[in-house]
């Protein structure tokens, strides 16, 4: 089976909706047992390692032609050592033909548990990787500003040249050199065009 092309930006609204619903159920079940963090960690592990590296397993999970009991048997054999709640949860998903949405459930569960815990994720984009001191200062500053606990996700992007771009939710705080240069360029171009129209002969010389 050929590898699926990855489209990280493609949004499947149906999958997101299913993911949210199942994630809420999963969190509800694990909160009673206080095993939320462990279960999410194990779920992420399944998604990132087992499923991502094994397209045939993913295809089997998604396939409606494979019987739910068969899927449950596979889950027992392959993931036998995970938390029993997660194991039961995956079997329920298999029984309802939703096993293909496991990564959507993971995404939604991470987001939901962050929301419950009052955490936000801040994406930090820098030209060079952060030092530990800077990382600590950033976390505490952001936490103070946002009034919530912050989890940093670091991305190194040399095209920024310097400075830092912080993204929290849909809001971006941009102090990168690249964007500042861009702005100077625009301001200079528009200012120059204005001057040129006001007094065009100023820029010409006859010789």
């Amino acid at each position, binding site marked *: 089976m050929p590898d699926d092309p990855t*489209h*990280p*930006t*493609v*949004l499947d*609204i149906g999958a*997101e909706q299913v993911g949210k619903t199942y994630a809420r159920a999963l969190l509800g079940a694990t909160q009673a047992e206080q095993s939320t963090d462990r279960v999410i960690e194990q779920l992420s592990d399944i998604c990132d390692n087992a499923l991502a590296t094994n397209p045939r397993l993913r295809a089997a999970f998604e396939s409606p032609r494979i019987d739910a009991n068969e899927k449950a048997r596979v889950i027992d054999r392959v993931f036998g050592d995970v938390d029993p709640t997660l194991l039961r949860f995956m079997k329920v998903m298999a029984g309802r033909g939703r096993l293909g949405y496991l990564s959507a459930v993971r995404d939604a569960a991470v987001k939901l548990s962050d929301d419950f815990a009052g955490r936000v994720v801040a994406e930090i984009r820098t030209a060079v990787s952060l030092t530990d001191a800077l990382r600590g200062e950033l976390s505490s500053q952001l936490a103070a500003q946002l009034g919530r606990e912050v989890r940093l996700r670091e991305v190194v992007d040399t095209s920024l040249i310097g400075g830092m771009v912080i*993204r929290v*939710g*849909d*809001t*971006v*705080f*941009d*102090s990168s050199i690249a*964007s*500042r240069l861009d*702005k*100077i360029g625009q*301001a*200079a171009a528009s*200012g*120059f*065009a*204005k*001057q040129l*129209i006001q007094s065009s002969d*100023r*820029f*010409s*010389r*006859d*010789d």
Partner: protein
Amino acid sequence: MKFNSDEIASVLQAEIEQFDSKIDVREVGTVLEVGDGIARVYGLSGVMAGEMVEFPNGATGLAFNLEENSVGVIILGDYLTIEEGDEVKALGRLLSVPAGDAVIGRVLDPLGNPLDGKGPVQSETTRPVEIIATGVAERQPVAEPMQTGIKAIDSMTPIGRGQRELIIGDRKTGKTSIAIDAILNQKGQDVKCFYVAIGQKDSAVAGVVDVLERYGAMEYTTVIAAGASAPAPLQYVAPYAGTAMAEHFMFNGGHALIVYDDLSKQATAYRQMSLLMRRPPGREAYPGDVFYCHSRLLERSSKLNDALGGGSLTSLPIIETLEGEVSAYIPTNVISITDGQIYVQPDLFFAGVRPAMNAGISVSRVGGAAQTKAMKKVSGGLRLQLAAFRALEAFAQLGTDLDPATQAELDRGYRMVELLKQPQYQPLSVNEQVISLYAGTKGFLDDVDVKAVQAWEKDFLQFITDKHGSLLEKMNDENALSDEIVEGIESAIQEFKSARGDG
């Protein structure tokens, strides 16, 4: 000529020195899919309906559809270089266009960018493209005439300043010509004109601009063009953008005239966008709010009360019908919104009656309030007379012998129809119209050959301007048909006729 590089460098240096570098805080989203002038964007969770967004290629967009998981954005500009995954930035403001005297005489696209090669519009003032129209208390009734210079219209379906008069008819029946004549006639009237071309061939728009330039009308006119090759979102916003520019003059106590040519194409563009956005289709596949799309546009034409300066915005929307079908969805909608319609018909057009206005079904709901007293007097019974003539004409075609009274009525009718014909781009002043119509309705043309009526009228009006200029001046001063003026007109007619030797 060479460029002086030192000067250029100094300007750039000044710009860089003044540059204030603050942290750029912005709300962003990611393009999920793009095509056909629209984009679906993930994120932008705080964006509001109608807010402007910016794409990395510099194109602006409008948040059009707010959905649970994504935002539908219409792209006002080049959408071919936008890619999936591009970052979209919310600008936190509404779409606005340049306004004021700087736009007069220009040919612009709906965003206010120049199309005429005369450089950017240097305007400090801008106006939001979408505003809610003024309410009842801010208005006053339409009472001032807005002369189109076309006899048939000014006499039978008079248009007032602040009125919305629809021009409706099939293709190639002279709809645009009526609107262009109305613009040409505003010369020296202190009325700013706006011609919004939507979904038309660029060659047709170029033709209109050429006519306006040739007759000196570009001095007070702005052309806003979103041609047939422009993406649907630009065609959709064009009328709102034109209205925003025109409103600047209305709210500053001036008068403006705006022509939307034509709104059926705007409705089609809106339908395209709505269907691509997956809004549910309704009748003729138009979305449910296509009525609101036109009503909120045309409501912005108004006559403001004196406390607000008494400015006015008159609009002449144009609708193209298919095979004379006025009961289609868009024509009925716009007919019901406007204050009357001028109905032009192909059979009249090809019979040589130009403007091809059907006087029987054309109306102006403002009526006589928008006419001068003199015009009201001469045109009083004109509509009924013409209606009676049409009935008689149909009857006479049966070939029966007619009594002399009926024959006389028919003859008068033929001459009136002839008199109401008017060549393109030759608007007449209201006084000239009054004098011609007076001659026709009072029977002074009955002894002129039907085929010679137009030539007679032309010579007669020339005769009046040459020999009786004082009469025109007096009519200007009095604005009504006093006995003295009537006497003056009649004696002038007699003098002219005896000079020609026809009576």
